[in-house]
């Protein structure tokens, strides 16, 4: 119980700060809208069919929007040393990690909804006939991404190389996730039967579970001074 309450405190704080500053959501949201506007001009719909690239674009927008937010997960805390304050409190390290994962997940889900909205609006994209399977693919993908990204952004915040390391560390691990996500999404957009994405869903789920477990177990070694 106390574990959950501490975890909730982290989530509550992150959400409250984000609602006040809107720093991360704005950067991500701006990007999303940019993608929409730009592709409207850049892509000649008679040459390229939006459907053909939508799943890639959507994932790229989500992942990059996510990198943007995740990269700052721990930097945001640095001013006035507040993160140090959290580490000096009796919150178990895994609760802290999971709290951060949850708040990043919320943030990213919001952005993802915006992404889908923008794509529907600008490209008149229908998303295929399996909204549940689609939601499953996207949410599991985000979860795995956030689980890895949160862990590694703590590492890169602790090194002198700063953010340079984040992409180097995270991309190799994310690429499989992206590949599974993109292929599953584009199959669903093409209205293929759900059984076609079964394997991908399982892989995304496995990825998320393993990444969460690894993150929760390893986080304390990362934040130790």
């Amino acid at each position, binding site marked *: 119980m106390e574990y959950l309450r501490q975890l909730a405190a982290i989530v509550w704080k992150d959400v409250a700060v984000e609602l*006040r500053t809107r720093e991360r959501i704005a950067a991500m949201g701006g990007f999303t809208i940019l993608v929409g506007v730009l592709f409207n001009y850049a892509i000649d719909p008679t040459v390229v069919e939006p459907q053909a690239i939508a799943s890639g674009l959507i994932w790229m927008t989500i992942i990059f929007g996510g990198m943007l937010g995740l990269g700052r997960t721990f930097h945001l805390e640095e001013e006035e*040393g*507040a993160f*140090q*304050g959290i580490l000096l409190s*009796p*919150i178990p390290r895994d609760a802290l990690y999971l709290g951060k994962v949850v708040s990043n997940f919320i943030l990213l889900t919001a952005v993802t909804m915006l992404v889908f909205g923008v794509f529907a609006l600008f490209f008149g994209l229908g998303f295929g006939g399996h909204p549940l399977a689609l939601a499953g693919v996207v949410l599991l993908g985000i979860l795995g991404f956030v689980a890895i990204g949160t862990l590694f952004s703590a590492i890169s915040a602790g090194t002198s190389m700063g953010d340079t390391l984040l992409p180097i560390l995270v991309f190799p691990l994310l690429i499989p996730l992206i590949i599974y996500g993109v292929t599953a999404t584009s199959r669903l957009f093409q209205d293929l039967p759900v059984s076609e994405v079964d394997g991908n869903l399982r892989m995304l789920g496995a990825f998320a579970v393993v990444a969460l477990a690894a993150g929760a177990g390893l986080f304390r070694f990362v934040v130790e*001074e």
Partner: protein
Amino acid sequence: MAREFGPIQAVDGVSFTLGAGQLMTVFGPNGAGKTTLLGILSGGLKPSAGEVMLRGTRLRAGDPEWHRRIGVLSHKSFLYGHLTLEENLRFFGRLFGLRDLSVRIPERLEQVGLADRAKSAARTLSRGMRQRLALARTLLHDPDFVLLDEPYTGLDAHAAAVLRQVLTSLKDGHRIVILVTHNISQGLELADRVAIQVRGRFVYLGDRSEVDADSFERAYRERVEEEG
């Protein structure tokens, strides 16, 4: 106990014990390693050698029980500028698993004279107000073991008097307090033990009763020059 940053030996072979209700003041020149020492005691920095014991428990960084019993006031305020005063305290209170926050927070804000600013964002506070809030945060969970790094910084005469009162009541409550300051009279005032740290090492450690308030300043300067 020891800790180094690259080639700099910040804390070097320091060792001491304190009883319940005792307050130790650590003096020392800039860069002596006082803040680093408090960092080790708080569990925030791992010592490269040595250990810390509190009433029979050994310190392990990240051990919730240990952190629950310690309160730290550092150079940084550990506050979120975008949260209000109340929200800041509520956040830290929840991390410490406190239940009676709706009573406790107004009480503590009142104590440090910030009750009328409870709904302001922390970033609009003046320096002294921020230090007061940081003090309230440090003591919010009534820790057994309190580490204060230059707590008088930025406080006006009134707030300094409040702090002095708080320190007295901590001692009466059998808490252990370690205080770092550059102000000799403020440092000696409530101390039971006095230490001088130079280049990482304790060059002096004695009971308050052994030192003479008037001549301490000269004695301190001599020690520092000798060792520096």
